[in-house]
């Protein structure tokens, strides 16, 4: 049979999907700019980036876990727990806190959230619990710890002044610290994903776990590491959000796991592992973030947003299946 060469530059499936999504981002951007002129102002765009920076940070390790074929639904609870613990550890003793220096509080909070990540890894790789169930359980545990630490509401009185440092510092009058952290995190995770052995192994595990194991990949170690990183990063995100709020609120981080999964899938990461990219996830977060932002400006009832998010996730999966199906059919014809 004749072999037909694809004309022009060849992209891998992954790159192609990311390009599609980038295209979609541009289209959404242009449409929103036209229908809502207030969208395209420097202040608003900064707002969109700043508001979504924390979601992007926590979604990056979760993206890698999903490429290996594992979920992490605990991040929302862990964010709440990290913020509340950081606040409680440095809250003055008079107000019922532990009265420790802020930097000690931050380290202790991060240790606690990292431990949740370790527990996720243990449940999934050692005890063989399905990752959705295991991390759903630890999400609830982490949220429970946040409720206990904040006595069901907030840790806000008797916090040191430095507690607000992460959330209020600005650089060059434009960048918030969380935006800086977001940029650094994107660069680091993109580097790990595309330039390191660790990153390559993530794809091997997701593509075929048994074959990865037989090829000498330490599958357990790899997945454990990712869960631990995810626990650490979510805890850090919780500390950022608490600092922005000036209090450790036990309800902070609700639905982050859901928003993260929506954005990750929208960004082209396969639910079954083996395919995906952190850049895709960044695009996914911004598509949803920009739509939500514009809806807000139109004064749309906040109740509509979950419905739209739901439609976006189902639509995105159907679209991807269609796009990949098209490609596979084309390839088969070429065989």
């Amino acid at each position: 049979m004749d072999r037909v060469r694809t004309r022009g530059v060849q992209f891998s499936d992954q790159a192609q999907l990311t390009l599609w999504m980038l295209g979609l981002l541009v289209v959404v951007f242009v449409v929103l700019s036209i229908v809502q002129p207030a969208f395209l102002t420097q202040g608003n765009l900064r707002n969109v980036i700043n508001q979504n920076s924390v979601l992007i940070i926590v979604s990056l390790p979760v993206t890698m876990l999903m490429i290996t074929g594992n979920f992490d639904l605990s991040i929302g609870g862990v964010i709440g727990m990290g913020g509340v613990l950081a606040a409680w550890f440095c809250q003055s003793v008079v107000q019922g806190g532990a009265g420790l220096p802020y930097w000690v509080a931050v380290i202790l909070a991060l240790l606690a959230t990292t431990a949740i990540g370790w527990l996720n890894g243990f449940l999934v790789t050692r005890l063989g619990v399905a990752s959705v169930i295991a991390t759903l359980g630890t999400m609830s545990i982490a949220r429970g710890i946040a409720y206990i630490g904040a006595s069901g509401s907030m840790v806000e009185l008797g916090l040191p002044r430095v507690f607000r440092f992460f959330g209020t510092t600005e650089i060059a009058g434009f960048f918030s610290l969380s935006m800086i952290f977001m940029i650094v995190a994107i660069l680091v995770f993109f580097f790990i994903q595309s330039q390191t052995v660790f990153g390559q192994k993530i794809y091997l595990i997701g593509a075929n776990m048994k074959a990865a194991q037989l090829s000498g990949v330490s599958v357990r170690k790899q997945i454990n590491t990712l869960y631990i990183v995810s626990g650490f990063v979510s805890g850090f995100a919780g500390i950022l959000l608490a600092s922005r709020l000036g209090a450790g609120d036990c309800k902070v981080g609700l639905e982050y796991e859901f928003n993260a999964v929506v954005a990750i899938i929208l960004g082209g990461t396969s639910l079954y592992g083996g395919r995906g990219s952190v850049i895709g996830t960044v695009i996914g977060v911004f598509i949803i973030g920009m739509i939500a932002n514009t809806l807000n400006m139109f004064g749309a009832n906040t109740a509509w947003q979950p419905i739209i998010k739901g439609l976006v996730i189902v639509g995105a999966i159907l679209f991807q299946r269609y796009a990949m199906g098209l490609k596979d059919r084309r390839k088969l014809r070429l065989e």
Partner: protein
Amino acid sequence: MDPILQIQNLTKKYPGVLALDNVSFDIERGSVHCLLGENGAGKSTLIKILTGAQVRTDGMILMNRKPIDAHTTKEARELGISTLFQELNIVDQLTVEENLSLGMEPMKFGFFTKNTELERMVGALKHMEPSIDPKQLVSKLSVAKKQMVEIVKAVETKAEVIIMDEPTAALSEGETKRLFEIIDQLKQNSVTVIYISHRLEEVFDIGDSVTVLRDGCHIATKKISEVESKAELIRMILGKTVVETYTPRAVDRTTPFIEARNISNDKLNDVSFDIYKGEIAGFYGLVGAGKTELANVLFGLDAYKGNLRINGAEARYASASEAVENGITLAPEERRSQGLFTMLSIRKNIVSMNMKKISKNGIINASAIKRVSGEYVERLNVATDTDEKEVGFLSGGNQQKVVFAKCLNSEADIFLLDEPTRGVDVGAKEEIHNIIKQLADEGRTCLVFSSELPEVLSCCDRIFLMHEGELMTIIDNALDIDGDEIIHIVAGGDA
């Protein structure tokens, strides 16, 4: 002659594969008809077509001299063809009685009504095996008893033909005997049994006639009384035992490289051998002889009792990654599900087993990946226009070459090659055999685990004959080797 089933010119094509090629034979009413063949010979395809799970491409099936055309297993059952699958078709969470009544549940106004048919079935089951309580949960029953429940169900729903797919695979000796008694009873009630098994002794025990398939073709249908010996059956199953050509190779046999002493686990029994550096050792035996299990032990996947030394040092690896680090590599039997990342590119597959070679301090070097991959694609002659193509789109032979490239790139000293040419066409087979010889010439030690005699005869220096987990004997390969003698040994005869 009173055939219940007549299979005429049956053909089944899958994309790129001819699974059944113009197969014709008759099955006598009330007989036990054995179906034999290696994995991939076409047995399961034939069964799937008979039971409506697959649609034939061409040909006809006559039942009671009338053409039949089942499109679902339910239709096949209504025609009177029932199947006892290896994975029994029985619901563990229900009671015996509920399982028997599944699919017939007579209802009135949405309520179950009293069921005389069920009572008859329960009676029949009591008659066959009094120890089964109909109110008992099926999950509590042994495999043998579950089979009986299925058999009763098949017989009482007026099955004229019952297909049994390796029914004794999980049975003890006593249970097997009991099953054979039941099969005898079925025969007396003129039920026809199509019997599939890898255990050739059983064919002589209960078979009336036998059909052998090989590579999708019908080889022979014979009465058991006309079959001379087990060896004759094996010859039919495996095909002609003509050797490609074995060229004797010089192997330095002063110090052994791999020393195995009394290796035992639940699948292996007291296996001991020495293998020398640069040698090609062929482990030959039928399905279930313990070849894959031995490979698993060497690769750190299965635990074992006994002593294993490689290059003088004790080799007891806790995991595959430890084995890989110690210079062992495995090309697994199940290529697609265990050996390859079919959704990833050829390039990524080739470098997957040795990331150190393409990285420095954990950071990968894209041009090194390209170079390494290109080198092996060329060396092994993988037919593809670009090494960025997904492996899933390659043919079986080319996929196996990618597996070999992956193993080669690991720069291992010991190559464990489990069924290296299964599902590979003839041309690619010879190429792969040449690659193995090259590897050995470079001083690497190759262990070939194969159920194809021509394969071990054509490329292995010594042949290790295995039967039911035991190493029977080791033969030096030579041009005048007696294939029949080997077949006699792996079938369980004296060495």
